[in-house]
């Protein structure tokens, strides 16, 4: 699993929100217009694409796109 693919999937999810130019160091909650709805979009996308269902507990530790990528990779290995 490549971070570039992961970022492409994230961008696809957020494109209609006018959020673009995501990078590994993008801090999720600093994205323009970020709110709780984006968490739901993320969770649904990650479940669909990566078969990992993230809980609120898991996401507490996530700050950046790269943190999220690492978390998904780690959860995939736990499966």
């Amino acid at each position, binding site marked *: 699993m490549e971070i570039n693919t992961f970022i492409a999937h994230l961008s696809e999810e957020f494109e*209609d*929100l*006018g959020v673009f130019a995501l990078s590994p160091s993008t801090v999720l909650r600093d994205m*323009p*217009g970020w*709110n*709780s*709805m984006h*968490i*739901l*979009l993320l*969770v*649904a996308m990650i*479940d*669909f694409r990566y078969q990992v*269902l*993230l*809980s*609120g507990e898991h*996401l507490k530790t996530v700050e950046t796109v790269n943190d999220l990528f690492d978390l998904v990779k780690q959860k995939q290995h736990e499966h």
Partner: protein
Amino acid sequence: MFVEKTAYYFPERPIHVTEACFENEQQFALHQSYVGTTVLYQAACDQTASDLAMNAALILLRDLDLSSIDFLVFSSLTRDYHAPSTASVLHHKLGLKASCGVMDLPIGCAGFPMALMSANGLFNTMDLNRILILLGEVPSRSVHPNDQAVNFVFGDAGAAVLLKPSNAALSFEFGNDGNGFSSLNVLRGGARFPMDVAYLESNAAFPWLNQFGQLSMDGHGILKLTLSHIPSAVFSLLDKYGFTLDQIDHVIFHQASTIVIDALQRKLNIPSHKMINYLAEGGNTISCSIPIAWAKAEDNKRFKDGDLVLIMGFGVGFSWCGTVLTYRST
């Protein structure tokens, strides 16, 4: 068993979901894309869940011989009284015969399929003519105006469904995950947390919260429960019938929010033309949502005689129940 007729009723007070309801344009756009509701209805202060159900029943039962109704099931999370059952009150108001039985199902978003399952059991064990399912919900009474998670999501409504027996054998898929307790609840007003002076005083400015207590929802938690249980429940249900999803003509999920319905559609790979989503008008009406969606799909001529309609209710609990019904035009 088959659905003979449906009707629904929205209270007369519409709340239009506009940009003015949100902090900024983007928040509004997000709400429109992912909750999907443009108008909600709110019951008047003196209207209860049974009043809304009664109005739907009056539309449904016009010109019907009431003596043919042998059982009444009432589904609601916001019943009129602790006792007697609200079904009993509705039975009396409608003037149903004394030999018509009554039962309340305070279940929530899975309430309609559970009511169908109860009705199916009754039809299978007794020689009954018709069963009436009434549904009424006033979730607006539990919504705190400052809680972003539940504002402009839930709406009040009533619905009514008339069932008749048939030779078609129905199967149901149901289940429960008690871990859902913390994701969606109304804790006040029951035995564990009675209304106390502190609670009543803290909501002095929002007196409607003193009827049932305040609704608390963790949207992420509910989405996670939905995605972990509902796709497998849909496949188990299809297995019971020996169907594949390809054979199903329409899918009506509980109208929770567009984000939840879309996530299920994507995970199950259901073509868009099979999906029924009528969230725009009325929003999430708890147990009324599936019968309202059914009635609107029928009004919009989406169903053909013999179509297979998969319905799946899920939510508070976390509980779920679903079945596949064959549509009959009457």
